[in-house]
């Protein structure tokens, strides 16, 4: 069990290292050098040289990469070229906002999913058909379109909820939840479509297993069969999907946050790309890679709880 966890963490560190290479070199692969990109198209040679000096971009690539890592390990992610604010400050400001959004969306998604996926207990039941329809429709609707539609209806037409912006639900719960509602539901619907598809399938498969028949042959009532025998095995493939979805949702947050003018990490990252904010983009890529790594490790930890075959090794 300890070896299992250590190997996962080691793998995660490897992924982070690989990700850092991509994060670092992405700007160097663009035509021109980073200093020219930062300076913009109309800058003079002197300005470019000044930027090169300022950002220590005039050394060899390897030296620069090593220097960058040294700073990162000291907690120094650089300073935003655009706003002159330290990148770590920007992240500290925006990440909690985005994590709140992702958390709320995941809760919305799981609520939809758990109810709908119960349809997978009986193939062909009404609920099962709704679940199937939901997963097809939910995946087909573009999130930005759904977001715009939600704003038009709930914010502009009916005026029930704010059209965008963010109020912290930790300091003012009611207004905060109202500001979260539309983006979280928009995002949650998309996530729940993915989740429902997988959990329904997973339940359909598990309910056909021999051990479910055995549990029925023991005279357990159907809810006991599901709760005690089917639910854990059905969750095993499902947590993988939740892990992938939540870790990639940082990327998806860009779409949702842009639509709802939501001041989170996604908006920051999109802005940094359009303004070629060198250090912010680098740090942003690292954050996304780190999110994937952390989510994967959490999924592996979840396996430990769900699957005794991993907890105690394969045999004996």
């Amino acid at each position: 069990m300890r070896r299992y966890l250590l190997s996962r963490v080691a793998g995660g560190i490897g992924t982070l290292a690989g990700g850092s290479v991509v994060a670092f070199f992405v700007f160097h692969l663009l035509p021109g050098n980073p200093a020219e990109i930062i300076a913009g198209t109309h800058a003079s040679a002197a300005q470019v040289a000044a930027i090169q000096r300022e950002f220590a971009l005039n050394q060899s690539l390897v030296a620069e990469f090593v220097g960058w890592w040294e700073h990162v390990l000291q907690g120094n992610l650089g300073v935003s070229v655009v706003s002159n604010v330290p990148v770590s400050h920007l992240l500290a400001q925006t990440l909690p906002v985005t994590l709140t959004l992702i958390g709320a969306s995941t809760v919305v998604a799981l609520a939809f999913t758990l109810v709908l996926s119960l349809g997978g207990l009986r193939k062909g039941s009404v609920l099962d058909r709704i679940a199937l329809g939901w997963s097809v429709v939910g995946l087909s609707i573009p999130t930005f379109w759904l977001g715009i539609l939600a704003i038009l209806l709930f914010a502009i037409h009916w005026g029930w909820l704010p059209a965008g912006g963010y109020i912290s639900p930790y300091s003012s719960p009611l207004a905060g939840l109202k500001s979260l509602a539309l983006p979280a539901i928009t995002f949650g619907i998309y996530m729940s479509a993915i989740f429902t598809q997988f959990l329904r399938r997973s339940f359909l498969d598990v309910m056909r297993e021999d051990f479910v028949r055995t549990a029925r042959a023991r005279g357990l009532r159907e809810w006991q069969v599901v709760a005690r025998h089917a639910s854990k095995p059905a969750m095993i493939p499902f947590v993988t999907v939740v892990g992938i979805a939540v870790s990639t949702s940082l990327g998806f947050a860009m779409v949702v946050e842009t639509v709802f003018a939501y001041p989170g990490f996604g908006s920051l990252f999109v802005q940094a790309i359009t303004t070629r904010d060198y250090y912010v983009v680098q740090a942003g890529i690292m954050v996304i890679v780190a999110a994937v790594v952390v989510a994967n490790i959490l999924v592996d930890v979840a396996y430990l709880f769900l699957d005794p075959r991993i907890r105690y090794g394969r045999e004996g």
Partner: protein
Amino acid sequence: MSGAETSVRPASTALPEPAPDPVVEVADLEVDFAVRGAIGHAVRGVSFQIRSGEAVGLVGESGSGKTVTALSLLRLLPDRTTRVRARSLRVAGVDVLGASAASLARLRGGAAGVVFQDPLRALTPTRRVGSQIVEVIERHSGRSRTQARLEAVELLSRVGIPDARNRARDYPHQFSGGQRQRILLATAVASHPRLLIADEPTTALDVTTQSQILDLLLDLQQDLKMAVLLISHDLGVIARVCDRVLVMYGGRLVETGSTSDVFRAPGHPYTAGLLRSIPRLDRPGAVTSAIPGEAVDGFTQVVGCAFVPRCSLAAPVCTECPELEDVTPGHQAACWRSELVT
């Protein structure tokens, strides 16, 4: 085919005391199933009884309907794709087809336990083996959890799991195949059922383990005075355990009788063929022969006797469907020409 010797169990050890009411009473059982729009007939008019404490074997090739027959006894077939009908279907006094969900649940695992073929797949991989026994005891014997736990440990050591107290906390994958089957047996008999249905309980095991599991099965049967319905394609297994045997072919019973009668003088050419296909260690020179041709499945339209295409005794009369008729008292075969069977 198993290496277990094909010796017939002495009839004298049977039946502790014949109870008047049969544990299982099946009359004209029909099971239809739907696969991609087509309707198949898995069981076509099967009738039999099992008395208290009696061990009955159900033999046939795969697809003959033996497992479907056994599962219908507790309505364990998927509702959506199968239809079960019968003039009468009673298990331990419960009218299975008319029973409410609640009384059906009391019957399952209560008066009737089931053991399935593949013990790794039949035990829930994410649940401790102890809990899988405890839940049966709790559900059907109304014991407190503490009491049920004690009984479960007792039962585990009764079925031959060493260090039962600690091993009750282990998961199925931590046991060997034979031990898993012992555990599955323990879950099936935990509520002291009147009937144990065992569907190919030893097929997934190696020969030595197979023999130990059969010993355990016989042991438990004597101890708990259970009736046993043992499903197997292996005549050696049936001969060792069963007082009586039912032979199925193409969804019908083609022969029934005491194990000794049927094995000594089969009345149906299919049974005779099955017996000839067993390798005999005690008669080294004897020729082993497989039954030619392929078994019918539920989708085959059958007119008359289903065995005709594979039968060396087939005659014009066989286009009419034969009923089970006495070969000798208590031994019946559904064959027009049973007196010619050798």
